[in-house]
Structures are given as structure tokens and as C-alpha cells.
């Protein structure tokens, strides 16, 4: 059975060029820190990749550091808050707070919770029913002394694009540093760090058709910094540990390919998103869209179905070869439905029945038609056996 992969926000398959570049570099075992020929060869590869990743977001290569994942990059940024400044010259006021949002990725939410437990003060800004940051609340929070603001650029569950420009201006005006987790944005929409004047920005390789286990953090020159992983001079002393040269090589090519393909792909995805949305409206009643086309990346469509539970939908679709994701409690292991959908004010009943369809570079019109062919039957089937549907109520 042909599998239709529609879970690109979770991860993406390797771009063929990325795959090729990794295979071609397989025998380059040198340590980029070594001075001999093998080391220099690896170093050259590493710096080439750094230039490519930097180019995708219009950064200076020297401002990009490679890390092990998007989560590590985000943890690194938040960790500067706990720094006492003994070695790195950062002296964040103890009173000074971290401001973030309620819909961040768990690697920000949980890290900020941990900082809070250690005595830091954290403000979490909520979102409206479209999943967009409440700017007036941000403004209010920034009236208090703030050292760092961290707001994601694109939400992983709904695809909602935040007004990072406005949030960043507010933060800078309040004298705070600004970080954006752009893992779901880079490679989907244009991101230009020079124009944005952001202080920190997180990128992940495997969301842009690169390999897993590699991420990058942009740190604007002159910005206070404190390493999360210490004990080595790698990455300008900002991240200890011998670099993942193969992964980074692939990351570089992935970034380069994104630069070439993103624009045309965006137009294709816009059309596919429209078709998918219209097709679902035509075929299935009692639905609620959690992605709003005018505020979301075209690749993501999050939609809830009344009367059905998400994990069951996901697994019936999986049996038909269609691979998606859900915000249902049962699929998370935590038994809580999606915090993002709940924060948007979606009734709990609907938040248990959400599907996230995230398309990508290989998604075709046929894939979308296949979803439209199979999905209505899956929803109908589950609704017919559901206590939350039909009977005397309908």
C-alpha cells in the first residue's frame, strides 16, 4: 500500500540532495578541531554548511551555532536566565522576568516551568481564538522588568503565524532580549534575521528535509550568551562536543534546497490547502477548523470533528496508508488534549477530535484527493459507534 505522509510538522523525509550529500561525506571522519589534513577537510565542510544555513535566514555565518536539536537550542536560550554571570559577564536581575506564550513547544513550556521552580518569574501570554498572541497582554507584562521574551514564530499544531515583528519591537522597547523558536517557520515562510533584528532564533534540520539530531541557534553578535553544554572550544566555545559533521553537512544542503524550492512550493501548498479545506467542508458536517488560512502557513491544516476521538481517526487513516497527527489526549500519553487548542478556547469535546494534516514538498493533488476519499468514511464510521453522536440528539 502506498503511504501518504502528511505529518511534515513532526518530521520530514530527507531531501534526495541531502541524502546524497550525507552519503558522499560518509568517509570524512576527521575532527573539525584537528589541525591535520583530515581535520581541515572536516572543518571546511562544517563551515560550508554554516554558510548555507546562515544564508537561508540572511544571517552572518559567524552568528550561527550548531546544536543537537531545536529543543537544545531553545533550552540554551532559556538557560541564560539562570546565569550568575561569573564567567560570561551576564548579570540578569533576579527580579527580571521571562515572558513567553501559553502555546509554545513543550521544550519552552517545561523549561520555563523549571526556571520558575528555581525562583525565576515567568509571564505566559495567552492567545485568541485564532491562536494569535494577545499583544495587549504582552505589552502589559512588559511593564515589569523583563530580561527575555521568547515567542514562537509558527505554531507546530495549528500553523498560526505570530506577529513576531510587533512582539519583538515591544520587547526591545522594554529593554528585553528577544528569542523566537522558528523551527516550524524556517523553510516555509521567508525569515530574515537582519531585517527582524531578532537576538536569538532557533532552526531545526529535520523539519526542513535534513537529518535528525541537528539544529542551529542564531545569536546576534554582541548578545549576552551562556553555554548550556560546557567544556569545549567548539562552536566558538558556545557548545561543547565534537560537531555532528555528517548531520551538519546534510543540514547545509537542506537549507540550500529550501532557499531554492520554498517559494514555488508555497504556491502549490496554498492551492492544496484550499482544496483540502473546501473538500472537507463539502463532505463532512459538524467540523471546526483550528487553522485560519489568512494567519497560518499553508502546509498545516488542523481541523476537529464533533463526536469522534482523534487517536481512533488517526489509526483508521493509518490503516489506509494516510499518516497524520492528532491533538487528542489518548495519542499524547499525557491524557491531556492539546494545550494549544484548549488555549484557543476550543471546547474540550472538539479538542479530543482534532487532526493535524501537515503537507510538504512531496505532497500531491492525488494525496489530497485520497484524503478526501477516505476521511469522510472514517469519520462516519466512528460517529456511528459514538455515544457523542446521533441517537436522540440528532
Amino acid at each position, binding site marked *: 500500500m502506498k503511504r501518504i505522509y502528511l505529518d511534515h510538522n513532526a518530521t520530514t523525509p530527507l531531501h534526495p540532495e541531502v541524502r546524497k550529500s550525507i552519503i558522499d561525506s560518509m568517509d570524512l571522519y576527521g575532527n573539525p578541531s584537528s589541525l591535520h589534513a583530515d581535520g581541515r577537510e572536516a572543518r571546511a565542510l562544517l563551515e560550508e554548511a554554516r554558510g548555507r544555513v546562515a544564508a537561508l535566514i540572511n544571517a552572518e555565518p559567524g552568528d550561527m551555532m550548531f546544536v543537537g536539536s531545536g529543543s537544545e537550542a531553545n533550552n540554551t536560550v532559556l538557560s541564560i536566565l539562570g546565569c550568575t554571570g561569573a564567567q560570561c559577564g551576564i548579570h540578569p536581575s533576579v527580579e527580571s522576568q521571562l515572558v513567553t506564550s501559553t502555546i509554545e513547544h513543550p521544550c519552552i513550556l517545561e523549561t520555563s516551568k523549571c526556571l520558575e521552580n528555581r525562583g525565576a518569574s515567568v509571564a505566559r501570554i495567552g492567545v485568541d481564538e485564532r491562536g494569535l498572541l494577545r499583544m495587549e497582554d504582552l505589552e502589559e507584562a512588559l511593564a515589569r522588568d523583563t530580561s527575555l521574551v521568547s515567542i514562537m514564530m509558527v505554531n507546530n499544531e495549528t500553523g498560526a503565524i505570530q506577529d513576531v515583528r510587533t512582539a519583538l519591537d515591544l520587547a526591545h522597547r522594554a529593554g528585553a532580549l528577544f528569542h523566537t523558536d522558528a523551527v516550524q517557520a524556517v523553510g516555509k515562510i521567508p525569515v530574515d534575521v537582519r531585517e527582524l533584528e531578532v537576538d536569538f532564533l532557533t532552526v531545526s534540520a529535520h523539519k526542513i528535509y535534513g537529518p535528525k539530531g541537528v539544529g542551529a541557534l542564531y545569536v546576534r553578535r554582541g548578545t549576552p550568551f551562556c553555554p548550556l553544554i560546557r567544556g569545549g572550544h567548539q562552536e566558538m566555545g558556545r557548545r561543547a562536543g565534537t560537531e555532528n559533521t555528517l548531520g551538519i553537512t546534510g543540514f547545509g544542503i537542506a537549507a540550500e534546497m529550501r532557499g531554492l524550492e520554498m517559494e514555488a512550493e508555497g504556491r502549490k501548498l496554498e492551492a492544496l490547502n484550499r482544496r483540502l479545506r473546501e473538500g472537507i467542508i463539502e463532505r463532512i458536517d459538524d467540523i471546526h477548523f483550528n487553522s485560519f488560512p489568512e494567519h497560518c502557513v499553508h502546509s498545516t491544516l488542523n481541523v476537529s470533528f464533533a463526536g469522534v476521538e482523534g487517536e*481512533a481517526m488517526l489509526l483508521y487513516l493509518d490503516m489506509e496508508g494516510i499518516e497524520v497527527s492528532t491533538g487528542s489526549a489518548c495519542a499524547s500519553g499525557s491524557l491531556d488534549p492539546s494545550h494549544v487548542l484548549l488555549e484557543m478556547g476550543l471546547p474540550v469535546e472538539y479538542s479530543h477530535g482534532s487532526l493535524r494534516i501537515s503537507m510538504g514538498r512531496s505532497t500531491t493533488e492525488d494525496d489530497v484527493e485520497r484524503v478526501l476519499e477516505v476521511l469522510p468514511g472514517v469519520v462516519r464510521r466512528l460517529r456511528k459507534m459514538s*455515544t457523542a453522536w446521533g441517537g436522540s440528539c440528532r
Partner: protein
Amino acid sequence: MSDWLYSDRVKEHFMDPKNIMYDEEGFEYDAKGTTGNIKCGDEMTFYLKIDPESMTITDCRWKTFGCASAIASTSVLSEMVKGMKLEDAYRISNRDIIEQLGGLPENKVHCSVLGDKALRRAIDNYYRSIGMEDRVHDTGSRVVCQCLNITEDEIEHAVLEGARNYYQLQEKTKVGTSCGECEEEARRLLAYYLDKHFCNT
């Protein structure tokens, strides 16, 4: 490649669930019982046809709003109870269901708890309908955990059976393992019953 998330039996019953209550079928039943709560993500109803002579379940149907293992566990339970005496069916526990399913991951166990509760509720409703109130086990004790329909009595029972802290109470009753809203109330009751039964002063 892993073929499937859960056991083969779960897959079987999820792919082809038995005894679903389809509205158009017009299944006539003698008793029904519902448990769970849509807000918590799981709700199910059992419909029983009962032979009054032998007090045996002759046929049954069910409906479920829930995940794959909730669907499978209700389906497998519906196969288990057919031909069973009411009193025997009453004793089916979630452990029995899990065994029939060939096991479930730890975080999925709460789903299967619902089937036996819905079944017991249906049986109680049947006893009530034929005037055998003395057989009703559900004494109308106050429900503490709305998601999993766990009562004050059950919490007291768990304490008597050895639950000494909230973790052990959850192990025994599953209280608060779904939405968690009842945690404070459950902890208060736990302290109350510990005090009532095990404090000598």
C-alpha cells in the same frame, strides 16, 4: 517495522468491532448503562438483552466515544458477556478485559476501565427495572471522578484495601487519571478515610 501499536487482539477488535449499537438496526434492549464523560475523552454505553428466567445476558450492543483501545476493549467485553449470568458479568473487572485483549500499555489502561463500569451500571439498571433493588450494588454513592465515574464508596474501599497515599489510590481506582480535576477532592477523601479507619486517637 512494527505492524501495529497494540496487541493483535486490540487490532482485530478495532478493525472489526463486534456488537456495535447501530441506530438503524433497532436493537431492543432491557437495560442500558452509560459511564465516562465526553469532556474527558471517553464515554461508553452498554445495552443488554436479558432472559428473565435464567437471568442471563442473551445479547448486547454498545457505543463508544473513545480511542482505539477504548473501542477494542468495549468490543471484546461485548463478546465476553454474551450467555453470561448477570451475577457473573457483574464480576468482570478491567483486568479481565485487558487479559482478553492480550495486554494494553500502562497509559491506555484507563480506557478499558470504562467497559466494566458501563456494564455494571446497565445490570444495576436492570435489577431496578424488575424491582430487585436488593441486588443493586451501585448505592448511589457520590461520584468524585466524573471522567471514570469513581465514587466516594470506591475510594473508601480502596483505603480499606491498603491504599495509603494518592499514588496507591490511583493504582487501585484510577481516580483522577483522566482529566485530573478531581485530584484535590480525592486527596481530601483519602485523608478523611485514612483518618476514619486507621487513626486511633
